[in-house]
Each structure stands twice: as C-alpha cells, then as structure tokens.
C-alpha cells in the first residue's frame, strides 16, 4: 500500500511534531517527547485527567487532550503501550495537587506501564487512581469482564471523567463517574479490511474480500466470528444483538451512541449503519440522548466500524452534555 511517511520507524515522532504545530491553540509539547498536554494543564484545583495508549488510533489518544477533556496523554509506538516513564510524566503534567485520574484501556502493556508509573508517582507524592476501560463485549464472556478490552467507549469515559473534573469534583468522585460511564458502556466492532503497521510493511491479519469479522479488536484481535459481508442494516442488527443483552439495555433506557469508523471506511457508510442502529433502538423503546458518528477511534487504515452504546442517567447526561474543546471532540 502507498503510505505517506518519511522513515517508517519515526512515524510517531513526525506525527507528534505536526500535531503540536497544527494544534498549538489546544496542546503543548512537554519535556518528554512522548507526552503531550493541554496547554493550560495543570489546572489549579482540578483533578488531572490522564490517558495513554499506542499510536495509530487518531484522534485517540492525543486528539482528546483539551478543555474539559484529558490534561495529558502518554504516547506509545504504533499499537504498542507507551513507556512507564511517559505515563509517569503525563501524571506529573496533569497533577495540580488534587490527584490524577488515569483513564485507559485494558491491554496488558498499558496495565503494566501504568502500574509501574503509579509506583513512581506514589513515591513522588502524586495520588493516582485508575479506571480501566473494558467496553468491548466481544472480547471475553460476561463473567470475565476483567479480560475485556477497551475500545471506542474510552472516548465516552474521557468525556465523562473530563467533565466531572472540570465541574470541580474530587478524585474519588471523578473516578466514580468515569467508572460508572464505562460500566454502563458496551461496544462491538466489525472489520472489513485489515491495516498495516508502517514498520512491518504488511498486514498482520487478513479479512478476505466478501467477508467481515464480527467482534474484531482495535488492533485486529480475532473477533467472535468471520461471516459473509452483510448489509449495513444486518450489521447494525448483529452488533446490537451482542450489545443490548450484555448490559442489558431495556425499554425506557436513555443512551448515548458512538459509532466510529475504523479509519478507511467512508463516513457515508457509518451514517448508513447509524440509520438502522437508531431505528432498532427506537423500536425497542430505547431513546438516543446524543449520537456521535465519525472517525472517533480508528486503527490506521483498517476498514469497518465500532458501535458503542452507553446507558445514561442524569449525572452521565450532564457530563456528556458539558462543553468540550479538543481536536477530536468539540462541543459547544
């Protein structure tokens, strides 16, 4: 494939430089080349919000740095956890003395690097608590919630945690809100074409033409089934069939929906799927409080979509509706 880059081993560095140049109104570089922060962070008297993860998921993770969103982000190689020092430096960059909420996704490397960073942060007197997103309900059975991966639901977790922190809540309250957000969130992805890690040069998984993989992970982790490519309407149905009974969602619920493309799937197709998603939810008496459709959490040029549904109560609605100003999510 025709990738636009310079040295494949430095795509993350080159991207970060461009990102900081283009978005200087929101983000700043820090002393650690693998940590970006909100230009106003640390914000006096506010709980700091930190996240981090591998690169290749634009706008995640750095695109969610901003006002009422994340204060600092640790950046890893493509699809690979940031180093512990990057998480630690992000925690320091976000810390204004009221503690730091580290809201990240359930991947082995991230778990280990965050733990490592927390050991050091503790030694430095920074209080850090975590919420580990595990919204991908196709990644493990319901009785093994702790094995489930975090996917696009992380965006809603950051939105809720970021808003709560900006409202002035203390660390435990921010953590509780972000945890409530992810506990009420379920996601599932379908993949229709793989992607290639630049330094590797060929896809490390395959999706045959005419097929799709239901339940695929954000890095191509195997899903629950490989099936013939279905119509957009059928895809919406299949995804909701996994999502709705899992929480479960029920008639009378209000939800926030996030439908993200995986990178190369035209936004047009995402709206075609969303059209049926909304119809099914309506048919089942579930009201969509707010919908986000677009490339919110991608995997390089993978094709496919992820569907995320979060059940909301008044507290979560208030957080979701709170303004935000980040590159990837702006809300007035």
């Amino acid at each position: 494939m025709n990738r636009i880059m310079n040295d494949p081993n430095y795509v993350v560095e080159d991207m970060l430089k461009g990102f900081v140049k283009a978005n200087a109104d929101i983000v700043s570089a820090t002393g650690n080349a693998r940590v970006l922060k909100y230009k106003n962070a640390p914000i006096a008297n506010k709980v700091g919000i930190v996240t981090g993860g591998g690169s290749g998921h634009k706008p995640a993770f750095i695109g969610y740095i901003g006002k009422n969103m994340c204060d600092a982000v640790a950046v890893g190689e493509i699809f690979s956890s940031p180093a512990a020092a990057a998480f630690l430096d992000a925690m320091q960059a976000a810390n204004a003395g009221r503690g730091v909420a580290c809201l990240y996704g359930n991947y082995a490397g991230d778990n280990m690097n965050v733990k490592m960073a927390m050991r050091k942060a503790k030694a430095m007197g920074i209080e850090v608590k975590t919420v580990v997103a595990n919204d991908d309900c196709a990644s493990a059975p319901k009785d093994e919630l702790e094995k489930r991966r975090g996917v696009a639901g992380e965006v809603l977790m950051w939105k809720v945690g970021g808003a709560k922190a900006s409202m002035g809540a203390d660390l435990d309250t921010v953590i509780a809100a972000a945890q409530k957000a992810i506990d009420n969130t379920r996601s599932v992805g379908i993949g229709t074409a793989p992607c290639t890690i630049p330094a590797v040069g060929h896809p490390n998984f395959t999706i045959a033409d005419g097929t799709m993989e239901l339940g695929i992970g954000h890095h191509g982790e195997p899903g629950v089934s490989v099936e013939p490519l279905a119509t957009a309407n059928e895809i919406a149905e299949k995804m909701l069939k996994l999502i709705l009974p899992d929480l479960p969602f029920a008639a009378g619920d209000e939800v926030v929906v996030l439908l993200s493309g995986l990178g190369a799937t035209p936004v047009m197709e995402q709206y075609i799927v969303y059209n049926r998603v909304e119809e099914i939810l309506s048919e089942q008496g579930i009201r969509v409080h707010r919908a986000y459709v677009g490339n919110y959490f991608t995997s390089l040029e993978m094709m496919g979509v992820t569907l995320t549904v979060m059940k909301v109560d008044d507290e979560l609605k208030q957080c979701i509706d709170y303004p935000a100003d980040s590159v990837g999510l702006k809300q007035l």
Partner: protein
Amino acid sequence: MTIKNTEAGRIVQDLIRTIHENAAYLSEIDGKIGDGDHGINMNKGFTICEQRLADQEFSLSDGFAVLSRTLMEDIGGSMGPLYGVFFDEMSIACADLQEIGAKDFLVMLQNALAGTQEIGSAKLGDKTLLDTLIPGLEAYSAALDAGKSFQDALKDLQAAAKAGWQSTEGMIAKIGRASRLGERSRGVLDAGATSCYLILNAMADSILRMLAASK
C-alpha cells in the same frame, strides 16, 4: 565469597552484549507465536542503555538503575515495565552494599521476582519469563539452603533456569499476545522465557568469572 558492587558494573555490560548477540534469535522465536519484535524491543532498550553508560565508571547497582530507567523510559509494551521493574528491584536491593554475597544475590532475585509478578500478574506455567525465573531462583535458594557455595548455587541457577526455559516449549500460553492462540501456542519456546534465560545465564557467568578472579 563476595563481589564488589563498585567493580561489578561489567555484569551490565555483559548483559548488553548478550542481548545484542541474540536479538535476531529472540525476534525469530517471538515471530512464531507472537508479533516478532521481542529482540527488537529488548535490543532497543539495551542499546540506549549502552550509550548512556558509555565512557563511564559505574557500580552494579548504578548500572542496573540506568538499565531499569532506560527500559521504563524508552521502551513501552510489556518488556519495558517487566524488565524495568526487574532491574529496578535488583538495583535497589544492592544499592547500599559494598560487597555482594550469595545471600544478597538471593534477595536481589527474590525482590526482582516479586516486582515482576506484581506488575505482570503472571504465574508459573503461564508460558512467560517467569517460567525461567521462578525455577532458577528456587534452585539457587535451595542450593544455599543446602549449604552450597555461591559458585555452585549459581551453577544450579543456570541449570534450572535452562530447564525452566525449555519447559515453556510444552506449555500453552495463558497470558500475553500468544494466549489468544490457545493450543496452537504449544510446541514453541516462549520469547520472554528465552531472554530471561539468556540474562540469568550471562549474569551468573559474569559473577562466576569475577569470583574466580578474586580468589
């Protein structure tokens, strides 16, 4: 018998050389059931550490501290924190010692294991580097209990670590990337267990050389 902390920095240099020499082999093993980057990840960290230590005098505890910091700063993924905490604990455990004896080395290994397990939550039999580290450490500990010398205990460590490493071939991966493969992960060695054997073996060889020289 003991080795001098100030003079034992060369152990770290020996480790770096060992990883350099085996980088391709480690990636090759990782390629079979992992993503083929274990040698690259390890070599990247150890090379940066080598540059940081170049033209400097350093003790064993300082060398381990730099190695640990480098792994935690410059390589993410799983290896950064796992070996990062491993060498961090090794360094802390000997930081205040002038002479490092057989018991000291035992404590160093015990703390390294505890840190690695705290971070990684893996158990014996999960087909990870712990399947090298735990048997190696147990053999070393048992040898000391049995009244063996530092040297003989180190040789027991080497033998048990090797056996532990090789035992991973018959295991199904329970954690990490390869665990998705289930039964298909059996029949090949584990990459992290391999690097862990190379590290423990080289470390023991270095100490044995230093002990022989100081006789």
